Structure formats: C-alpha cells, structure tokens
C-alpha cells in the first residue's frame, strides 16, 4: 500500500478538506490504485534529465509596476459571501 488512512487525513488537512468515514475509505482505495499506476515512471532513468515545468521555455516576464484603476469594484463585491462597508467579511481570526 502506497498511502494509508493516516496519510490521507494529513493530506486532506493540508488541502483544507475534510471527509466522512465512507469518503476516507474510498480515497484510500482509489489513491492507492492510482499511485500504483504511477509506479511505471520509476522504470525510467531520469537522473540526467532536466525537468520541464512549462511547455514554452521562458524566463521572468517583467512589466512596469504601474497602478491601474479597476472600475467595477461593485461587481467584485457582488460575489462576496459576506461584506461590510466595501470590505470582505470573514469569521473572527484572533480571539
């Protein structure tokens, strides 16, 4: 087994997700099947191979750090689950 229940719970915590019993069991099973399949990659010797993180080779793309007005502030706030006085509102963070 590649990943056990405890590890699945840990990863869920990192991903800010939570699962019930049935879901945990399902993910343990399915993630193991998928990770087994990934094992085939270990057959390839990649010690001399540079990784590719982007299809197009490019380095830092710079632009001027200029302020631009965004005219539709109201439209942004329309989507806020909770707001007050033009700000996003969240539950209390510090007691």
């Amino acid at each position, binding site marked *: 087994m590649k990943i056990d229940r405890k590890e699945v719970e840990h990863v869920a915590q990192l991903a800010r*997700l939570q699962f019930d019993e049935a879901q945990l069991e399902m*993910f343990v099973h399915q*993630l193991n099947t998928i990770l087994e399949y*990934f094992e085939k*990659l270990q057959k390839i010797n990649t010690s001399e191979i540079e*990784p*590719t993180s982007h299809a*197009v080779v490019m380095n830092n793309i710079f632009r001027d750090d200029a302020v631009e007005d965004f005219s539709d502030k109201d439209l942004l706030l329309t989507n806020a689950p909770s707001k007050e006085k033009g700000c996003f509102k969240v539950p209390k963070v510090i007691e």
Partner: protein
Amino acid sequence: MELHSLTIHQLHQLLSKREVSSQELTESVFKRIESIEEKVNAYITLTHELAMEQAKQADENISQGKTDSLTGIPLAIKDVLCIKAVRTTCGSGILENFIAPYDATVIKKLKGKDAVFVGRTNMDEFAMGSSTETSYFGITRNPWDLERIPGGSSGGSAAAVSADECIAALGSDTGGSIRQPAACCGLVGLKPTYGRVSRFGLVAFASSLDQIGPMTKDVKDAAILMNEICGYDPLDSTSVNVKVPDYTQALGREVKGMSVGIPKEYFIEGLDREVEVTVKEAIKAMEGLGIDIKEVSLPHTEYAVAVYYLIAPAEASSNLARYDGVRYGYRAKKGAGLLDMYKLSRSEGFGTEVKRRIMLGTYALSAGYYDAYYKKASQVRTLIRNDFEKAFSECDVIVTPTAPTPAFKIGEKMDDPLKMYLSDIFTIPANLAGIAGISIPCGFSSHGLPIGLQILANSFQEEKLLQVAHAYEQHTKWHLKKPDLTLPKYSHHSP
C-alpha cells in the same frame, strides 16, 4: 436548410449579402435550443437577452457595411471563460452564483468582432473529466446517442455544436478536453500551441497545460475562429509574441509531398478495433492525396497518462486553493472559525472528482514525495517533448486516433477513476509537449457513433494542421453528417 445548421462561413455570406439578419439567425438558434435542449442539456446558462442585444448591434453594423467574419454569428462559450457581468460557474457548485467581474481576453476579442453569445456550455467540474458527468449542473447527452457521454470536459460545447444549438463554440483543452469531445460528437476541435491564445480570464485548472480553442462544424470555421482568438496578450505572461497568420490561407494549399508520421505506440492494446480500422482507412485516404506516410516513434507515450495525472492535479491543487469562501464562491453556513470555514466551504462546494485531484496533487507536492512524484513526472515530461521534437524532424504532422474508443455509455466509467483517466491517453501528450493538435471526423462505428482522427503538429504549426485536415475533410465529407434528434426521447433509467 435551417439557419442554425449552417457554418460560420456559409452564414457570413448570407449576412453580408443581407439575405438574413443576425437577429433572425439568433432566433433560429434559440428555437432550436427550445426544441431539443431538454434531450441534450448542453447549456448551463442561456444568455438570450445579451445575445439579442449583440445580434441587433451586429445587424446595425452590417447595414453600415461593417461585416467581419464573425459579425452576428451565434457562438456558445464553455462556462470556464469569464464574460463580464454573466454567471461563470466552471460546472461547479462552489461557483454556482459567481458573476464574472471582467471579460476574458478571448471574449473581449470576440465582442470586438460583433459575435453573438448564446450561452454558457456545460463541462466537467473545473474541466476535470472526460465525459461531462462531473458537472454540478447535470450530465450532457451525446446528440448521436442520448445514452452516451458527449466526451469532456468541453462536452456541452461539443453537444451544442453537434446538435446545431449554436454555430460554433469555444472550449478549453488541458489533456484533450477539446479534441476528445469533438471526436465523440463528430466535430472539428483544435487545441492551439501553448501560448498561442491568451489564457487571461480562463479559470485556471493546470496553468502549464490549459489552452482555449475552437469547436466547429468544419475545418474552415476552425481557421476563422483561430484568426480571431490567437495572439499575444500582456495580461497572460505565458502567451507568446509570434505573428498570427491568416489561417484560412492554409486551406486548399497543396498537400502532395507532405509527410505524415504514424506513431506505432498509438496502435496498442486497448484501442477499439473499429477505431483502429477507421483511422487506418483515413491514413490510406491521405496517402491517396499524395501525402507520404511513414512510421515514427514516440517511445515515452505509455508514460504520458501517469505524467499528466501528477502534473495536472499538482497545478490544480495550487490553483484551486483560491476557493476558500472569502472573496467569492460558496461559503459554508456553519463553521466556528476561519480554518473551519475554509474546510467546510471547500468540502461542501467541490465535487468528488475535484477533491480527488486536489488530494492527488497535494500529495504529489507534499514534503517527502515531491522528488518521487512531481519532479519525476516533470523529467519524464521532458522526454515526451524530446520524442516529439525528434519525430517532427522526420515528418510534417503526426496522425493518430483521437480517443481509444467512440463515446462510451453514461455511467460506464464513473466508479473507476483510472479507467476514466485512460480515455485521454492519445490527447494528453500534446498538452505535455505544448504542441498543436486537431481532431476531425473520419468515419462512424457500426453503432453510428462518430470516430475522430487526431493530427498533431509542432509548436506554432497550426497552418499545417489545418492544411492537412482540410484536404482530408474535402476529400471524405464526413463532416456533413448530422445526428438525428427527431428520434423518440431516450427510454431509460438514469444512471
């Protein structure tokens, strides 16, 4: 012939000669939607009011002699591209009520050309899937057989074009999400080279793989849409500043003497017999057009699915961290503090497939596993790119099946994620390498299901794709076949 069944270029003729108006045309499309959408469910949101306004504006411009190739043409837009002040859901419950605050660059471009937006098409949640079954808004049915999936993730766009519920559509393709549904629904679907089309305003799934592209009734329409959506955009730092040619100029160019590579690694166990026979016949037809056929090798093909399902979920797990219930999207009602709010909002808001991929990606990036999974996959990605580089030094384009089988039955692969992932086996390598690919219809199975032929070309060689695709299409005419939706409504037991 009904207006909604025509192509962009046919309608452009009628519109510019003022034989029809965009308003008549748009009404014809909505009438079609009204009569068959109940069977197909291609759309999440219809934007009738916006469409009629745009059509009116288009008609005014036409009356002043301003008729561009897309003026007044009703298009469907995958629900992953932001249209300002219009709901944009990505097929997810977490964005059920999200109103986009700005236009995606491609949307801005199409608006500038007076195109008409009919509605937002259904898709797998956050484009994660190959069947459109993971959408929060219900399944979409394949117009060729209502008991089958339309492919995915751009299944709504594919079904809408195929059922004439729009004239053409935009999709997005991260691992085959334009080409595979195009194959399942008998259409043309083009994934441009990575960097060819701006991703600004495309809700991110896997940023190093995502591209926007056209889904159309024929190759010429794909070329016309490519002319309008391609190009450098300072708002997308991965877009590439390469001149956009007039893609329609590639159509009708002589193909005699061109060379097509056939990778033996794509004709493997698991490839449906009928798909194999049909694709081989298509290759013979190309030979008949004077194209040289040669065998090429892409030796790392068998690793592509594993590489993809590490890299794409890794990027997704990072991209989808933004859905935390703070600034937009679903926020859980319960939850004592901030951390609880994050967890509950995400757990209630995302569907199972999205959570599976976030889990997979988070695991692959987590301490202790990064080298074994993410880094390893990125290294094998280099080998896959190198395979294509070598192959394209020996041929102009590569031809393969688009998908290993025709459209499968609704529900068939939902319980087995790995089986579902393997439906992308032939389309994934192009995304990993960043190259261009197109799927075009090349025949039908004995059950009357469309079969797709994939043509791949090196980066920024879309003209070659269109040239070969067009020559084949004009020779065979498969694209002229239409599904028969007058058949009685499916009789069934939902999955």
